[in-house]
Structure formats: structure tokens, C-alpha cells
């Protein structure tokens, strides 16, 4: 007899997977509090303990259920998903969705009033806040040269990443898709981590383009297509997990803490503490993934600001790079 486990919540984008006819999949990767499942059409679903924040592709279980369940799973195990359940055949377990409404991973940006100058002030404050962080993994050392006009330490990673991040920002501002694609091509899959640092930065950047460009671009132009281009170029160049999360980001679907952070930017300047708190929640995610995502979001916000051509943020690296690198 199959044992049924009832999820505590689930994300809206994965609902169709459960509602359609059954299709096969496999356990992709197993962690202490999370398991990734890939389906035959390369969709990826994350089953998480609800101690972790919601992800755009997540189904969450109670901690005790998740801990004991995940302990029994191994990559490669066959699963079936559809007809209202996710079936793990080897252990005769079925995960069902609760009857509650799905969680919406696309933050309700339009429900808030967005002040251009207010967001710019938050971004300045956040740049200094991030620079003070002790943990400096991933792209963290690139924050000062990118956002505070300070020189970069030349490491193999910074030499590869910094010019491309600059290119990404500038090409996005100019709506130069070829430039965006070039930057995404060189950043996708770059750096340490299961979701490499370059992907996290691209995801943060893409989410801002998708969600906030209509509200915050000083030229009032939407940059949806930039987000789509980033995800499309990155897809074959990085891990399957990263590719899926980038695709979600391009649709404006982000992890819970990322969505909360983006919405916090609508708060008045006086509420900067709440903004920093929201940023800290993003930073706390993963080893350096949170910091890299935040860096990508701040870079995206700067790009929308149009300050990209005014200099100051984009110093020389010494490397010969694309035409936009100053």
C-alpha cells in the first residue's frame, strides 16, 4: 500500500505537473533538506523541508517528514508525477498537494508604488552593506569595483567575470541583445557552487529586468526580452538546476526571500532597516548563492538607473574586452 505524504505548500508553476497525466522522472540530486527531481521533459521540481524558503519550483514538506524521507532517496531513483501525486516507486511513497491555494512566486510588483530615487538610495545603502559582509565567496569581491567604484583585485575569476558583468549591465541599458547574449554566454556556469556564481548573478539580474524594468527604467522601457535572452543563452551552458532557476527568473518567478527583498525596495527611505533585513535573508541562502543573486539584482537596478554611461562605477580592468567595457 502506498504511503501518502501531504505537502504543506507548493509553488504555482509546478501545479500543472501534478494535474497532467502521469509522466516519468528521476531523482536528480539529494541534499539534507531538499531533493531535486527532473522529469522527462527536463522540468525540475524541488521537494524541500519547509525550514527552507519557498522556491519557484518547490513542494515543501514538514521538517520531520522531509528529513526522514530524503534520507531514503538516492539520485537516479525513478518517480512518476501526474494524476494528482508524485510517486516514488522504490519506497511506495506518494506526495500529494494540499487543498490550499498555490504559492505565487512572482511578487506582486504592481501592487506597490515605486519611487525611482527611493530605490536608488536603497541600492547605494545596500552596496555599502554588502561590502561590509565578512563572508566573501563567489562574486562578492566584485561588488566594490562594480557598485562602489573601487579597484578590483585581479584573480582568475574577477578577470573573467568583471568585464562580463559590466557588459551585461551596459548592454541591457542599451537594449543591445547581442551584448547581453555575449555576457550571459561568458557568465553562465562560471564560478564555484552547484548553481555557479555567474548563474546566480544572472538570475538576480534577469529577475530585475523582468519584474522592475517597467517601473524603474529611467527610459520607461520594459526589458522583458533581456531576461528571456539571458535564460535562453545560459540554458545549455550550465547545470540543469541553474538552467531551470534561470528560466523561472526570466518569467519573474523567484525564491521567497528574493521576492520579499524586491518588494522591500518599494519601502520609503526611512524603512531602510527593513530593506537591509530583507537583503540579509537573501544573503543567508546557500554558501555564496544569496550574495551572488543580490549582486545581480543590484547590478540590474543600476542598469535600469541609466547611470551606466555616466562613469564612476565602471573602472578599467586592464583586460581587453567587448566594446562596452570602459
Amino acid at each position, binding site marked *: 500500500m502506498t504511503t501518502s505524504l501531504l505537502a504543506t505548500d507548493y509553488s504555482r508553476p509546478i501545479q500543472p505537473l501534478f494535474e497532467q497525466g502521469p509522466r516519468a522522472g528521476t531523482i536528480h540530486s539529494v541534499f539534507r533538506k531538499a531533493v531535486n527531481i527532473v522529469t522527462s521533459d527536463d522540468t525540475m521540481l524541488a521537494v524541500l523541508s519547509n525550514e527552507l524558503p519557498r522556491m519557484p519550483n518547490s513542494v515543501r514538506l514538514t521538517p*520531520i517528514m522531509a528529513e526522514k*524521507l530524503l534520507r531514503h532517496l538516492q539520485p537516479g531513483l525513478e518517480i512518476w508525477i501526474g494524476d494528482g501525486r508524485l510517486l516514488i516507486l522504490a519506497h511506495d511513497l506518494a506526495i500529494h498537494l494540499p487543498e490550499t491555494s498555490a504559492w505565487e512566486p512572482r511578487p506582486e510588483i504592481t501592487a506597490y508604488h515605486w519611487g525611482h530615487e527611493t530605490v536608488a538610495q536603497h541600492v547605494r545603502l545596500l552596496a555599502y552593506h554588502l561590502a561590509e559582509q565578512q563572508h566573501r565567496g563567489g562574486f562578492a569581491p566584485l561588488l566594490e569595483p562594480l557598485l562602489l567604484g573601487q579597484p578590483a583585485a585581479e584573480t582568475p575569476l574577477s578577470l573573467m567575470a568583471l568585464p562580463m558583468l559590466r557588459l551585461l549591465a551596459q548592454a541591457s541599458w542599451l537594449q543591445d541583445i547581442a551584448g547581453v547574449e555575449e555576457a550571459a554566454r561568458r557568465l553562465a*556556469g562560471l*564560478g564555484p557552487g*552547484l*548553481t*555557479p556564481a555567474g548563474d546566480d548573478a544572472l538570475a538576480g539580474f534577469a529577475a530585475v529586468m523582468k519584474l522592475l524594468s517597467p517601473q524603474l527604467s529611467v527610459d520607461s522601457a520594459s526589458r522583458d526580452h533581456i531576461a528571456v535572452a539571458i535564460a535562453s543563452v545560459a540554458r545549455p551552458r550550465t547545470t540543469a538546476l541553474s538552467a531551470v532557476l534561470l528560466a523561472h527568473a526570466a518569467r519573474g518567478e523567484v525564491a521567497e526571500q528574493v521576492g520579499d527583498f524586491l518588494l522591500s525596495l518599494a519601502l520609503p527611505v526611512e524603512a531602510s532597516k527593513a530593506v537591509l533585513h530583507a537583503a540579509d535573508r537573501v544573503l543567508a541562502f546557500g*554558501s555564496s548563492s544569496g550574495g551572488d543573486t543580490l549582486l545581480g539584482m543590484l547590478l540590474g537596478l543600476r542598469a535600469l538607473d541609466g547611470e551606466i554611461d555616466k562613469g564612476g562605477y565602471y573602472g578599467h580592468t586592464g583586460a581587453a574586452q567587448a566594446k562596452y567595457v570602459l
Partner: protein
Amino acid sequence: MVIRALLKRNTYYDSITLMSVAQAGKDLPGVEDAGAVMATEVNLELLQNAGLLPVAFLAEQQAPPGPEDLLIVVSAADESHAQAALAIAEERLNSRGDRATPVGATTLPARSLEMALQRDETANLAVISVAGEHAWLEAEQALSHGLHVFLFSDNVPVEQEQRLKALALSKGLLLMGPDCGTAIINGTGLGFSNVVNRGSIGIAGASGTGMQQIICLIAAAGLGISHAIGTGGRDLSEAIGGVMMRSGLELLANDAQTEVVVLVSKPPAERVAHEILAAAQLDKPVVVVFLGAASERFATVAGKAHLERTLTGGAELAVSLAGGDRTRVPGESTLHKDESRLAAEHTKLAPSQRYIRAFYSGGTLCDEVMLLISEQAGAVASNIPLRPEWALAAGETFRGHTALDLGSDEFTRGRPHPMIDPTLRLQYLTRAAEDPETAVILLDIILGFCAHQNPAAVYAPAISQARARAAAAERSLPVIVSLCGTEGDPQRLSMQRKALEAAGALVYESNEMAARAALSLVSKAASGVIH
């Protein structure tokens, strides 16, 4: 300087693990640099720029690594340092499940089996009481750690029970349960258990309250218990096959302290009963109580085993076989003591008062009462009926003689068990008292650990009021209590008895005697059942 690498295909570790692996490599003497990255195109370029690209290693690979592969690279002074660094990296990856748990805050309860084991590696038994749907996972984990399991949880699917018991059997462990309410192992009570001396009688039972009844009656006779091993109520079903009953029997057979063995269960599946009886042919005496089953039913296969059909009968025989005085078991003699009182109550009943109304918290005790009543008085309506046609219909409270197991699932869903919370039973008591057809109300009250801390304080006033209201309506309303407990229990048997008797209840420590006393009140001749 040499560059060596390790490639793990389709392997995923979280970023923190990858960072720590890389850092551990860098920290080793003789190692210049190390990296642990997913082998994306740009990361290979990154390694090249860092002077870490393992060109020869990559050339040896049948297929080039891709984004789904983990590449660990070390640049070291020589081969031995490089290999040592890779070995440590691999060891770190393999031991990612090792989580150092701070034990400083020892006052905090352990939140997992692992945490509990870290605190006390000598533990050899796990008590599991979690929601039934998750219980098998916990039990399996405990068995895998070499622990015996007391599985209090119910609602565990029978297929999982089969699997768990097979696992326990293969490891030489006990899986007591699921839905195991009682056990006493090496003098330590688990679940609903009573305080008794250690002694020479060992019990294995598929019935929690059945075991408690036998234990308490043995204690009343001044003898003690070596072990009481619960098996879970379904163990002797066809599906489970008595796996744990046989394991428990074997343990008791080999236990030097145990001189007499008692097996207790509701009537098992025929095949299973035969197997249990075959296994019960020991050098030490074995008393088998298949509740309500006539001795003749299994007489041909009983062999050396002694068959008894009631819990009290089983306790009396065990006491006798263990060298004790069976007359000290509070059995038949207690009934004779109340003969005149029962006859007096009988004469005061109105003509409409014809039925026994029993409200039980113990399923096995309820079963025993129904068996005894039905043998003498016919149909007994119930939520756990002996025959399908005796089942109470939806919305029906009483129908003739009625016995309810208020501890069954339909009554305990969303509320505590009646051994703990008397609220529901008090409601039934009131309704039965108001019913002019009720001749006698029969209750079980179970003492011991986990039970209500002072049940008499709740039931005595209710009994007193019910009797007073009946008296005002010119009816007698006898209330009989089957009181299961010991003097050592936190509630103290004598104190509970005194308070209940003061409220006008007739109190019996033997459930069988309580049933027979109730029957005497509804029989045509008041003394007809007593003799």
C-alpha cells in the same frame, strides 16, 4: 608541481560542501591550490586561467566532462601530496552526512533519533510515538541503528508493519507494535504501564490493556513480572503471522528470570494460532489466553500449553504455576463478597431497566466484557461488535446491551484517549443514566503511567450524581467499575478504590468479575451468574 583531478559524473553537492572541500585541500601542506567546481565550459577556462586545468586527466576521459559533472582539482608539490589532498576531498564529500551536533544544550530534547544516539550511544531501544503515516520511517531508521522499537503509533499500514517486522526479525530485534500501548522491559515500563515488582512471570501480548489486566492481577497476588513484551494488536492476524509473538516467546523462553510465560491475544487467525501453540512447547510452563476462545477449539494442538479463555483465568493459572497462591488473585472471591449488595441492587431495578451499558477505554477489556455478556445475555451492540449484525448504526447510542470502546479511532480522532481525558465518557455516562432501560453502567478505569492522574476525582462525583438522579426518579442505578492498577501506581489503587466505592460504585480489579457482577443484575435470578 603536479596537477591531479577527480571527476564525479552527475554528482551534486551543495555550495557549502564544495567550498569546504576546496578549502580543505588548500589548507593541506604541499598543496598550492585546489578547486571544486561543476565542469562547465567557462569553469574549465577558469581553471586554465588559474593554472589548474588537469589537461592530461581530461584527455584520459572517454567523454569530456560537462555541466552536470563535479571536477575536483589539486595543484600540489608532488604526487603524494596531490593524492593525499584528493583523498581528503573525497572523504569530505563522502562524510557530508556527518553533522557535528553541539551537545552543550543537553537540557533540550533530542529532535531526531540521530541526535538522541549521539547523546547516548548505549541506548538499545527506541520509543516511537509520531503520526502513523510517518512512524514507519522512524521505526525503520531505529531498526537500522540496531535498536529494538516500541512503536506506540497507530495507523501504520499493514504492509509497512510486515516490512518492519521482517527487518526486525532479520536483525534479531523486537518491533513492539504498531499501536503497542504497553510493555515492561527489564523493569522499565513503556507507554501505559503499571508499577510492579520484577518477578518470574513473563508476558508477550498482542493486547495492551489485556496485558495490563494480567500484570495487575499477578501483582495483586504478590508476584512480579520479568518482562512484558507487546507485539501490536495485529500481530496474530493472518497478514502478520504472529512474527513478534514468536520472537517474544523465544526471548522469554531463553530468559533465565522467566519461569512462567503468558501469551495473550484476542482470538488469532487459525493458522497463526496453531503456529504460536507449536512454538509454545517449552520446557517452562506457557499459559495461552486467546480471549474468549473455548479451550476445545485448540485442544488438539495445544500440547503442553495451558489454554485459558479469560484474562483473570490466565493470571490465576500463571500465579499458580509460578508457585504463588491463586486465591490471592482478586477473582471469584471478590464477587461472592458483594453477593448481597448485588442482590439488593437487583431488587430495586425498575421493570424497564434491562440492559448493561458499558463504556470502556481499553479495547481488549471491552472485548472480554462483550464475550462474557453475550454468552449469557445474547446480543451486545457495539462500535467494535463481536458480530457484524451487532454493530451500532450511525447516530445510534444504545441498543439493548451496549458496550462501547471509547479508545477506538472514531472516538479518539482529534481528542485524547479516554484513559487520559474522561470528558467523552462522562457524557455517555450521563446519557446512559438518563435512559430508563439502563440497568447497570459498567466502566473500566486504568491506572498507571500515562493514564489520568486521578480518575476517581473525576468519576466518583459523576457516579454519585448519576445515582442520586436515578434515586430521585425512584430507580436504582448500579455502577460497576473494572479498576485495573497496582498499589505502586502513581494514582494508588487503594485510594482510587476507596473514592469510587464512597460514590456508590462496585469496584472489581478483575474485568471478568466486573462483567459477571453486571450480568447478575440483568439476569432473571440475581444470583444466577455468580454461581
